[in-house]
């Protein structure tokens, strides 16, 4: 189902959503734009293509208390903090970040174990996606199986067609949203404009990569000297993983005393020495070589084996923000030439 909504009405639509839902949208956080809870449509930044932090924070906060514990004179009390009361809307999420959310679903919501902290938030969230009319020079979603107008995974998808958006419902929840009076039937001209916009966006993006051959190459490269060369410039700062919309690693720590406190999980990164450091002093990944190898192998090899998809969606955040300009696209090209 496709409808159109004017850019003035979309503000009204969002204001209406804010009455019923907690809304997360791209908005100013300090000097940059990230997803956060907004209180009014005015807070939303409409023209930011790739937010500094991905929206994974909405389902998997950087710091999250799992439960509180209290030891009393006669026992132990645990209070889990997994419940999510209010329905949520994730507004203005880009196709690459939606794809990343689908990968995280496959990690956190497996048939054997459900990570209730993640799945409770995810299950109560409506995704309203928006296409990317002018992909950035760092974007490469089309290389890794995505696209600037890929609609899979969202409830409602918006395409900017000038003075209006073309709105397409992808799920029943999305269809429900389209019942609002500010949505009007799309005209043939609207659909044509949307097609033109999509084609123009695609022209700005690179060609698909052969992901299977990258995987096969990686399988044979475990002891390659390539990893020594690659890690030579890496500072091990971990920004590529913290800002990656797919990366899901976390640490679990207790905050408090033996008698009361809380158990907390925090984002963690495979790029840190301490990540795998054991209490004995043994570290199975002692240097940057093993750690950079882990990052690449996980994304382009192990994810394919375990989740059936790769762990990179081409958002380009790691390319934009690496302090030493390591470029994962370039690394993948060099991989193909390495021995």
């Amino acid at each position: 189902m496709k409808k159109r909504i004017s850019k003035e009405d979309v503000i009204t639509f969002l204001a209406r959503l804010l009455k019923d839902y907690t809304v997360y949208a791209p908005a100013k956080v300090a000097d940059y734009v990230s997803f956060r809870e907004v209180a009014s449509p005015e807070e939303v930044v409409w023209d930011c293509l790739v937010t500094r932090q991905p929206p994974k924070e909405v389902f998997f906060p950087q710091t999250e208390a799992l439960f509180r514990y209290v030891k009393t004179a006669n026992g132990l009390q645990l209070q889990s903090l997994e419940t999510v009361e209010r329905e949520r809307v994730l507004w203005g999420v880009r196709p690459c970040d939606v794809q990343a959310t689908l990968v995280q679903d496959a990690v956190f919501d497996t048939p054997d174990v459900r990570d209730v902290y993640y799945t409770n938030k995810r299950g109560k969230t409506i995704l309203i996606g928006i296409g990317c009319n002018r992909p950035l020079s760092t974007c490469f979603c089309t290389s890794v199986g995505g696209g600037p107008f890929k609609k899979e995974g969202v409830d409602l998808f918006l395409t900017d067609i000038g003075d209006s958006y073309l709105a397409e419902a992808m799920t029943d929840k999305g269809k429900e949203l389209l019942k609002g009076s500010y949505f009007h039937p799309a005209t043939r001209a609207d659909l044509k404009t949307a097609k033109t916009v999509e084609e123009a966006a695609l022209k700005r993006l690179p060609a698909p990569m052969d992901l299977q051959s990258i995987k096969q190459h990686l399988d044979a490269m475990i002891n390659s000297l390539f990893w020594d060369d690659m890690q030579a410039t890496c500072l091990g700062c971990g920004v590529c993983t913290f800002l990656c919309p797919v990366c899901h690693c976390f640490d679990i720590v207790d905050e408090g005393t033996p008698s009361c406190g809380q158990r907390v999980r925090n984002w963690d990164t495979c790029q840190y020495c301490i990540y795998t450091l054991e209490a004995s002093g043994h570290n199975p990944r002692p240097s940057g070589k093993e750690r950079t190898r882990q990052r690449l192998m996980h994304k382009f090899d192990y994810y394919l084996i375990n989740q059936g998809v790769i762990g990179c969606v081409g958002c380009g955040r790691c390319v934009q923000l690496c302090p030493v300009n390591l470029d994962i696209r370039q690394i993948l090209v060099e991989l193909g030439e390495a021995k």
Partner: protein
Amino acid sequence: MTSTIQTPKVLVSPVPNPYLPLPVRIEHVHVETDDNMLKTFELTFMREEDACNFHFRPGQFCEVSVFGKGEAPFGMASSPTEPGPLKFTVNKTGVLTTALHNMGEGEILGLRGPLGNGYPLDTFEGQHIVIIGGGFAFTTLRSLIQYMLDPSNRSRFQDITIIYGARLPGLLLYKEDLVAWEQRKDVSLYLTIDREVPGWTKLAGFVPDVVERIAPSSKDAYAVICGPPIMIRLTMPKLTALGFPPERIYSSLERRMKCGIGKCGRCNIGPYYVCKDGPVFSYAQLAGLPQEY
């Protein structure tokens, strides 16, 4: 600490929350080694239903909560065939294990598990089993041995050979069990220490050399090896020379872990998570993967 312990209140949702530990009480603490670095903690569930619902296999592990310090994974040293408390033998190494060593009877811990795959008992059935252990990596091997030696299971396995080494006699774990196993006719037990000391009547020498000397047959046999990396590295070629192929050599691996359920990411070896796909692996499974263990 606490004299009367009532049933604790745990607020949980209908969907099981894999991160919530079950409350357990320290029933007994036993010092295992002369250097006081290894203690066995006997834990009982504080709620009857948790005890009833807890079923594990030798080789599986739990995340033990020391509240205020966090969680760490420990393999069950007791066998599911043994009645009574769960046993965990803990080496005093870091912040959490030091705090645990300072705790005593009656104190409350948390337990999540059982986690991991455990030893492949069905695969072992009808076969000769050669168990090779070194140092304090003997805990889940004890569980496996006690399981196989239980009257209800003993006939399922053929010859059981145990080669167990420590630096000094006083550093061997489970001394009472060793005496009991030695007296049994259906077990071949070889104990060794690094160098001879006065009063020691058993073998002397490193585990790899003892394996070579005893030369257990690889025919219809599986080897299970747990110990320090150097011991494993030097024993592997001996086992290969005896004719054990990689798919018939199993080990239980250790890695730093947090979630224990394959979510937090840190314990992977290639595509396997040690917590979820392990901790027990055959060397055939590990071939061709980064040696990150």
